[in-house]
């Protein structure tokens, strides 16, 4: 099995792609694409489990690293690896994929081939974002992750797919333009795309510090749009509203948040410190604003979109508190939100499949008709709300407590207010859909409770919510090695005067490190 360590990340990247090609080549007959996609995603998930099994938690830095030359000039390397930060995000992506396939088992009725092959391509792109350590490879996967999502929204959108797809795409594509310029600009100064080298070079002052601010801003804006952070959240409601359930579930949030932590905070220490107060303020506004918007929605997809926006803002708060506890909480909360939102998407998708509408008003008294559905939904809602012993509590607690003790009392109190609002909209949603008098729609139809397939999707997530709530230390040991490294080097960096190595223009900085 040790031989696998070298190639495991490549395998994880290639298996979904191979599955996608297989789906595309085989005929679109019956449920064949569904089965291949399910099988592929299960195999991929099994491979991702190899990572935590073999991950040396005591060892900081990147593991399972592969570094091959891809293109000679400009020097682009196929450089991938995971550390404590990305490890669990890879596993989460692997876990959500088969569940996403199950969630779209019956929901996708035509053009299954296109759907499932694009779904699998999306998997590859997401894995790529999490494991890439070469800025160009990272950027390539980052951009690639937009395409399947956008095409699928256009094809399967509920009402006006193409418009929502375009909105999603432009919102996220246009900010990547400055990102690419910034990456290329860094390359022009350092002659490397290697993340580890860049981190050292930037913090040792090889890059003109005055311009570095713009550079870091370009990175930040690209990520902030993808998260999204207030006030650039315009795409999220339409996208959640239109996107096929499975995609919204696997894509939501993680990519931008992870990138923010890895490629903004870890890469630009001084600049992220400078901009942190602004980000904290925006995050808190986002938490409250998102929660208020969620309270006002009539459509449960839109409600979920704004709830997610609020949750992501909470994670942003954790990231830009720039504390060790906050980062641990933020990474943990990324996993939590992934699991919880996955379950909510799946359950709400199941309801929409049965009754054909996402208007909250149309429902009422569903609990009596679908007892299994309601119990899972309540578990997921409580996890989202942050009930102790469920996973949401741990992450939120870490973020809020670190904000309170190490950043500012005021912001922490305001953010905690958002948690209360969160409880209000989630529980109110539960009450409106599942309890009260039976609505006409619910009365007239009785399509049955959750089936076996849906249970197979949602039950593991529910178990996970409980385990992650009770025994977070299983995850913390490896997460904390990931967030440990940069924090140690940070104070030293901010004190040391910037050395300007312009005196030796003949050696490129990358060579200097090597």
């Amino acid at each position, binding site marked *: 099995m040790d031989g696998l360590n070298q190639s495991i990340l490549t395998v994880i990247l290639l298996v979904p792609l191979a599955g996608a090609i297989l789906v595309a080549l085989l005929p679109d007959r019956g449920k064949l694409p569904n089965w291949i996609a399910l099988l592929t995603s299960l195999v991929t998930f099994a491979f991702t489990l190899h990572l935590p099994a073999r991950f040396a938690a005591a060892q900081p830095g990147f593991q399972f690293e592969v570094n091959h030359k891809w*293109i*000679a*000039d*400009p020097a682009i390397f196929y450089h991938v690896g995971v550390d404590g930060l990305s490890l669990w995000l890879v596993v989460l992506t692997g876990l959500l994929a088969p569940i996403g396939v199950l969630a779209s088992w019956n929901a996708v009725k035509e*053009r299954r*081939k*296109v759907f499932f092959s694009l779904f699998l391509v999306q998997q590859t792109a997401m894995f790529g974002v999490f494991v890439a350590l070469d800025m*160009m490879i990272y*950027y*390539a*996967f980052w*951009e*690639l992750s*937009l*395409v399947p999502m*956008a*095409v699928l929204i*256009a*094809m399967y959108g509920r009402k006006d*797919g*193409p418009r929502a*797809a*375009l909105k999603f*795409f*432009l919102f996220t*594509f*246009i900010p*990547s*333009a*400055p990102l*690419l*310029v910034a990456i*290329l*600009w860094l*390359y*022009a*100064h350092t002659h490397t795309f290697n993340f580890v080298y860049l981190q050292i070079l930037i913090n040792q002052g090889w890059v*003109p510090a*005055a*311009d570095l601010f*713009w*550079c870091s801003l370009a990175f930040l804006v690209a990520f902030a749009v993808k998260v999204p952070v207030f006030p650039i959240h315009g795409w999220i409601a339409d996208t959640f509203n239109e996107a096929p359930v499975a995609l919204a579930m696997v894509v939501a949030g993680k990519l931008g948040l992870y990138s923010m932590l890895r490629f903004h905070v870890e890469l630009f220490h001084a600049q992220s410190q400078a901009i942190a107060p602004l980000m904290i303020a925006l995050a808190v506004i986002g938490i409250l604003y998102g929660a208020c918007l969620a309270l006002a929605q009539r459509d449960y997809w839109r409600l979920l979109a704004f709830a997610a926006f609020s949750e992501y803002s909470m994670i942003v708060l954790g990231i830009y508190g720039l504390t060790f506890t906050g980062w641990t909480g933020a990474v943990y909360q990324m996993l939590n939100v992934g699991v919880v939102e996955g379950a909510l998407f799946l359950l709400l998708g199941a309801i929409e499949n049965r009754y054909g509408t996402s208007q909250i008003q149309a429902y009422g008294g569903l609990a009596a008709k679908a007892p299994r559905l309601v119990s899972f939904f309540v578990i997921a809602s409580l996890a989202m709300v942050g009930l102790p012993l469920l996973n949401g509590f741990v992450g939120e607690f870490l973020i809020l407590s670190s904000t309170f003790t190490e950043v500012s009392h005021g912001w922490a109190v305001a953010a905690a207010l958002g948690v209360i609002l969160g409880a209000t909209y989630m529980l109110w949603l539960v009450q409106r859909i599942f309890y009260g008098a039976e609505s006409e729609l619910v009365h007239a139809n009785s399509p049955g409770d959750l089936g076996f397939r849906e249970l197979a999707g949602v039950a593991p997530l529910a178990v996970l919510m409980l385990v992650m709530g009770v025994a977070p230390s299983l995850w913390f040991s490896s997460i904390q090695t990931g967030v440990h490294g940069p924090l140690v080097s940070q104070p030293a960096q901010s004190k040391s005067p910037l050395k300007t190595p312009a005196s030796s223009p003949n050696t490129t900085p990358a060579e200097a490190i090597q």
Partner: protein
Amino acid sequence: MNELPSILRILPEVVLTLTGVLIMLVDASLPPAWPRRHLGWVAAAGATCALYASLLQFLMPEGTGFFGTVETSAFTIFFHVLICGLVLVAILISLDTLPDDTHHQGEFYALSVFSAVGMCLLTGAVELLLVFIALEISSIATYILAGFRKTTGRGPEAAIKYFLLGSFATAFLLYGIALIFGATGTTQIYEIAHTAATAPNRLFVDAALAFMLVGILFKVSASPFHIWTPDVYEGAPAPVVALLSTAPKVAAFAFLLRIVYQMFPSLHALWSPLLWVVAVLSMTIGNLAALRQQNIKRMLAYSSIAHAGYLLAAFAGVGSTGIAAAAFYTAAYAAMNIGIFAVVTVVSGYDEKLPMVGDYRGLIYRAPVLGCVLIFFLISLTGIPFTGGFFGKFYAFSAAIGGGAVILALIGLLNSGIAAAYYLRFAFVSAQKPAANHDQPPAPKPQIGAAVAAALGLAVCSTLILGIAPNEVLRVAESAGHTLQAPAPAPGEAPVVAPSARPAISMP
């Protein structure tokens, strides 16, 4: 200097000329009632042979022939291969889509081949008079091709417009040539490179450069010389536009590279800001105008203007990096653009029953393979990673940033965001469910013949190769850059050292 027979220096051109002449003779001697379609295969075979002949030139030592008028180098071979490939694909597209009852099929193929002769010669010529002749050979053939649909009103209009404005531009080029001859006493490009910097009358040299730039920028349809493009593309038959929008531009860009990097490196301070402005104008005007188009060919015309702008951004790069980036971008642009016109040709047909974006609704349901290929090319044009379009853009803008033009790169990449809007609107419309409209019969399922399938396959493969494994092409593009950077020293003169100091880079 070279013992190699001069004829070998123009081997691809010779092959193409023989093919063209053969087609014309056979066409003339066949009875009128006989079908002419097979002549297309002859043309395709000729183009393939020419492609092979260009590759053979790799085995020859670099140098010039015919008394220093044509050159063989990595640079010329790169563009020869590209042009021959493009003409081959264009002929393959035409083979399946020209209606059988079209008269003059033989002439169509002969003209396609002759235009290729001119374009190939244009990239290899190092003598301005030969450049002019080459340009005329290719232009006249394409003027006729543009007007091939004589029965519709737009066909002749397109041809006339193309002809008048094209001749006008050629006249500018000719003025430029005359002026530089007046200033330096020679029309040989290497010699001009040596004498231009020290020419007694600088005004003449500057004016010559400006006139030549106008002429060439017209050919590549860069803004503000782009007005003809949408009308010509709309009026000309789709398979012809597939050729028009790629091969002549490739050749013209090759010559532009030669003008600025080989002939006038000493005037860098003059042409660099000019091209900066033209690049920004082209991208911005092209993309903004394309946003508003509903006709696919007009949209793609404006998109090609925008791409000319991206390509010109590479000219901000220093020395061989800029040349290599521009050369690579022409290849990537040509591959995806000819591909998308191939799809448009198949779907709309020769007589264009479906010219609008809206007509493509549900294409992926009607013809899954074609729909996927269309979306693939649109994604490549947008510049999504792992396609040639991305790498071209990446390489061009990375060269620009390396040359200090950070703002240009920023404008360019923001522009590609605007471009995404119309490319993807098109892609999404074709991915959308077809409208359940029973009043009108559903659009016919497009037929893909063997030749078009081969053409599409070639275009898809090249776009993918340029996006995933570009190393080899990059290597050739780089050696092309080096050959252009180091002009052959004229006898008895010390070589001029091109300014290669790296300018300071600054963020906005």
